[in-house]
């Protein structure tokens, strides 16, 4: 029983230890006063991938690092930097992995071509079907 309690306590302690004791960065959960800038920041944050919770955007993630990245995005937008420039700056560091926006690089070609290919295959199948019926 004591052992079980200890295990439960350990499981409880783990997530607490994964965070620092400092408060969140100033702009991590605060909107920019200019609504236009805030909309720009929001749109960019939804397209940047969290480094900790890798399936989430930094806009959705509760990870501290995501908060620090939101702070970075908002401060740079407030300073007049273009969202595309901030995205490029991050891609320079983490690769295209960091951005949810698909790029036109060769590795992404199948992604762009798949809908077209599927449409063609579908059309061909339907044509065959119709022909067989008539026959």
């Amino acid at each position, binding site marked *: 029983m004591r052992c079980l309690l200890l295990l439960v306590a350990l499981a409880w302690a783990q997530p607490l230890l994964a965070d620092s004791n400092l408060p969140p960065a100033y702009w991590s959960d605060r909107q920019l006063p200019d609504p236009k800038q805030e909309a720009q920041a929001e749109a960019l944050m939804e397209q940047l991938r969290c480094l900790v919770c890798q399936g989430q955007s930094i806009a959705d993630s509760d990870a501290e690092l995501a908060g620090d990245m939101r*702070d970075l995005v908002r401060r740079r937008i407030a300073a007049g930097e273009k969202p595309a420039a901030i995205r490029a700056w991050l891609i320079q*560091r983490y690769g295209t992995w960091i951005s949810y926006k698909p790029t036109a690089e060769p590795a992404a070609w199948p992604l762009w071509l798949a809908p077209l290919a599927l449409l063609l295959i579908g059309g061909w199948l339907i044509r065959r079907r119709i022909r067989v019926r008539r026959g």
Partner: protein
Amino acid sequence: MSRTIRFAPLALLLLIIVALIWRLATPSDTNVHSTLEGKAVPAFALSAILPNKPPLSSADLANGQPHLVNVFASWCVPCITEVKVLQTLKDSGVSVEGIAIRDRPADLTQFLASNGDPYDRIGSDPQSQVQISLGSSGVPESFIVDGKGVIRYQHIGPIERSDIGLILSKLEQAR
């Protein structure tokens, strides 16, 4: 419909199953690697966090000697065992620098007092901004920077005793 086409869905299913089994057997690497390997350390100047420890800037790294830059924190559990390995590296003549992520002076003092202090310099990065500019995605991580200030190697996760050989050889290559 011809006989071969009839078996196409089954073949596709088998293909998918084989792909799934292959992925289970060889899990993909979920680490996010910095793309700055081979490039210069981005310019930064971090302030000191402890009164008796000099601060860290990118200029300190380009002084002709290779450096091991350790991204760590007193609140990071794997860092406790790693710092002891760093001490071993330090004892064999490696220059170890620290970037303390989101840390408080009191916590860091206690951390170094109880686990050892291999750091020549420690810069304070309270909002992970230098960590992000290095392309690092967590603690602990380490970067080997050559004498010209170019990043030569990124080590993701704690440096274990078994990594000492690897780290020393990477440092030798960066010389």
